[in-house]
Structures are given as C-alpha cells and as structure tokens.
C-alpha cells in the first residue's frame, strides 16, 4: 500500500486518501480538513513576542493580503511607514510565510557605525583590518536560505548603497579583505521611515537602489489613521503583559475613547509603552480617563471637566500617582519648573530629538525651547526601541 509506505518514508507528510472515481462527500471532507489545518497552521505556530499583526482595520487587512501575496516569492520588499508602526513585524510575517528554511536576520543600518557596516553585512577575512583576528561571516551569509531584513535602509551611507546594489544585481558578496565572490541565497526585505524619493532628490539615496528595493512596496499606515486597530492592540498588549506580570487591567470605556482619538505620534510602539506603564501604575485596576498621561488627555478637544485634565497632568508628572499637597506646602515655582522640565523631556522623546518638532508640540518658539534645554541641561533623547 503506497500511502502506508509513504508514511514510513516521509513521516512528516500529512496524507489524505481518496478513491477514484472521487465521491463528492469524501472530497468535501478532505477539503474541510485541508482548510481547517491551513488556518490552524497560520495562527497556531508559536511565534516570538510581537511578531503578530494585530487589528482588523481595512489598512491592516490590506497589509495582510500583501504579505500573503509576496511571501512565497523571492521578490525584494520595501516596507515604509512612520517609526513604531511595526515594519519589522511585517518583515517577520513575510519570512514566516515564505516557507524559507533559513533564519530571519535583521540589521538596523542606522544603528551601526559607518566604518563597521561593511564588515557587519559582508563579513571579513582574517587580517582585513586592525582587530580582524579571525575571519567572520557577515549577516548576508548568516541569512543563507532565509530572509535578510535591512531596517532603516534610508540611513545607509551612500558608499554602502553602491555595494548593496551590486549584491542585489549579482547575488554575490565579497568579504572585506577578499576578492572572492560568495553566492548568497537570501531574500531581502528593507524598511525605512524616511521619504526615499525626497532622499533621492537631496542626493542622499541612490535612485537605482530605490527601484531595486521597491519591487514590492508595502506602506504601513500610521496608527492614527487606523483607529479600528487600537482596541484590539490594547487588548493584545494587556493580555500579554498581564500574563507576564500576573495582574489584571481593564480600560474604562471613556479612557478607551480617548485612546482611540489620540494621534499616536509614536504609533504602536507608543501604545505598547503606555499599556506597559499602566500595568505598572494600575495593577489589578480599571484605567479611567484621569489615569491617562496628560499629552493624551490634553489633545482631546472639549474635555468638559477642567479638574480632570489638571489631575491628569499631575498624574503624568508624578508617574501615575495622584499628587496630594504636602501638609507643609511646597515650592510652587520649583514644582512648576519640574513639570516644565518633564514636559520638554517628553516632547523631545516624542519628536525623536528634533527640537523644531518638539517646540511645535509644546507650543513655544524654537529659540525659547533651545534656551530651556540648555538651562535644564537636557539632552535630546531618542524614543526607546522595543
């Protein structure tokens, strides 16, 4: 019996049997099994934290369809979208659904110094440069048979862009210090939050590389434009974090409404950070509107209760605990200076350290803000990356 023999030879094979001529009811049962297992495989595979695409908005559904379309092919994918929208999640989904057996290897081009990037990507031979005490395979080689994700491709130095272009065209790499070409079987996915056509106009990004990369472009919409995803994302983050912390957390309806109306400049990453903070601040509690940080509440128009806004501001400053005036009073000037300092710090985080944008967020002039940053000795922090 061929199918029993096949089970022995190929124990992984999921074999169904049908007699010929095929009866419709038997065929229907097999197709139902196939459909059930297909959907089960899609959703039940254990995946690392944060690799699922959450939400049911039309935009997210479209991204899902695009992933399904492109994943089985070898086409190079260019994912664009604001910071924190989940570009790496999309890249991982493409890899997981590609059927490629090699690993998913990610490199952030903006995080590696220019002088090290070539060696990081292509590897090096022993003695290629000072400190190269042994030969080392680069990330391209490590991704053999898998997917290579180049994040923040818009920040790649132009010298490296030329070398990357050659890899895409010839599918070979050369380690630093070697003239030998090594063939690479890698599927490339790139991502950027930058406007590449503008970078091309400014002479900072090669047009030929752009066209090579954007064989299959996927644009991820900012969270503020897909508000239908906010509630499912909140549920997912609460579910995940509460399980990790062994606590419970609920979001009151009015608080959820505020979350849905907020502009989320930091996108999904900002939402995840907020929920993480609320889990710490309100374990086993119900999050109400007044528990939300003031930048979120502040942007809601027509908040009827002024005290609630004030209370929320104080909540933000004190890290989630309501402020009660100490019996001995306080130094209001010093206290307000602390609030100002915290707000500037937060604005700089929100604006990725861009002072002009931070000044717009705070409604003060750029010069004024620069002076305050100097006075408070604040640096220009970047948003935390998760």
């Amino acid at each position, binding site marked *: 019996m061929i*199918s*029993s023999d096949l089970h022995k030879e190929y124990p*992984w094979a999921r074999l*169904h049997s049908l*007699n010929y001529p095929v009866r419709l009811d038997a*065929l229907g049962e097999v197709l139902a099994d*196939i459909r059930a*297992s297909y959907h089960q495989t899609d959703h039940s595979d254990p995946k690392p934290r944060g690799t699922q695409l959450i939400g049911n908005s039309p935009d997210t559904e479209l991204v899902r369809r695009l992933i399904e379309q492109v994943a*089985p092919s070898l086409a190079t994918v260019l994912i664009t979208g604001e910071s924190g929208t989940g570009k790496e999640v999309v890249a991982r989904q493409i890899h997981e659904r590609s059927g490629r057996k090699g690993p998913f290897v990610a490199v952030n081009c903006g995080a590696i110094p220019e002088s090290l990037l070539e060696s990081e990507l292509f590897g090096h031979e022993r003695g290629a440069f000072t400190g190269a005490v042994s030969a080392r395979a680069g990330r391209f080689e490590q991704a053999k048979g898998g997917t290579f994700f180049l994040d923040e491709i818009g920040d790649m130095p132009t010298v490296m862009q030329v070398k990357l272009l050659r890899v895409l065209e010839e599918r070979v790499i050369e380690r630093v210090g070697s003239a030998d070409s090594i063939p690479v079987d890698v599927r490339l996915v790139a991502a950027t939050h930058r406007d590449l056509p503008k970078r091309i106009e400014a002479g900072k990004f090669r047009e030929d590389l752009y066209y090579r990369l954007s064989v299959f472009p996927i644009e991820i919409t900012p969270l503020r434009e897909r508000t239908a995803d906010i509630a499912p994302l909140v549920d997912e983050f609460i579910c995940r974090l509460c399980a990790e912390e062994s606590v419970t957390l609920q979001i009151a309806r009015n608080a959820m409404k505020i979350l849905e109306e907020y502009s989320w400049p930091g996108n999904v990453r900002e939402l995840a950070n907020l929920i993480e903070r609320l889990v710490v601040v309100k374990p086993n509690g119900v999050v109400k509107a007044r528990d939300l940080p003031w930048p979120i509440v502040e942007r809601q128009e027509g908040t009827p209760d002024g005290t609630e806004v004030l209370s929320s501001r104080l909540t933000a400053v004190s890290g989630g605990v309501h402020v009660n005036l100490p019996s001995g009073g306080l130094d209001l000037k010093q206290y307000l200076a602390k609030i100002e300092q915290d707000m500037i710090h937060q604005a700089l985080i929100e604006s990725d350290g861009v002072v002009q944008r931070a000044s717009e967020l705070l409604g003060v002039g750029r010069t004024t803000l620069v002076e305050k940053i100097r006075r408070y000795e604040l640096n220009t922090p970047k948003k935390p990356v998760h």
Partner: protein
Amino acid sequence: MIMVVNRTGSAAENLKELIEFMDAPHVCTSTPTKWQQQIGDSRLEAVFIGPDLTDKDIRAVVHDIGELDPNIPIVMITEDNDE
C-alpha cells in the same frame, strides 16, 4: 492554490472541476515533472496526486513537497480501496 498532479490531462481536469465545484478557489493542474514551475508566487494549500502516477513519480512529488513546505497536505487518489 491547490495543485492537481496527474500524468493525463483529462483525469486532472475532472478532479480540478470537482474541487472547484466544492468552492475551492485557484485550482491548477500539472504533470509530475512540471508542477513546481506552475506554483509561481502563489501559496500552496494542498497537492492532489492523481491515480495514474507511478510509485517513483509519487515518491518524487512527495519528497519535493517536503522540500517546499512539510506542512502542505497531500491527497492521494487511488484506483482501489487502499488507505
């Protein structure tokens, strides 16, 4: 995509029509040597192996399915009642 692999076109077409009749979209027919080329950019949901393939053909197709994705269900169509 559901792929029907058979040596003769007519039996494969009959199977394709039956599968499509059961509301399965995107069904494709092919031979034991050419089926992989016809997948293109599509994601394979299942492979139906027709009754006129030799044992050698069947083993080659099953082996290649495993190389492609071991999770793809394989449906064996047999002339007799063998399970």
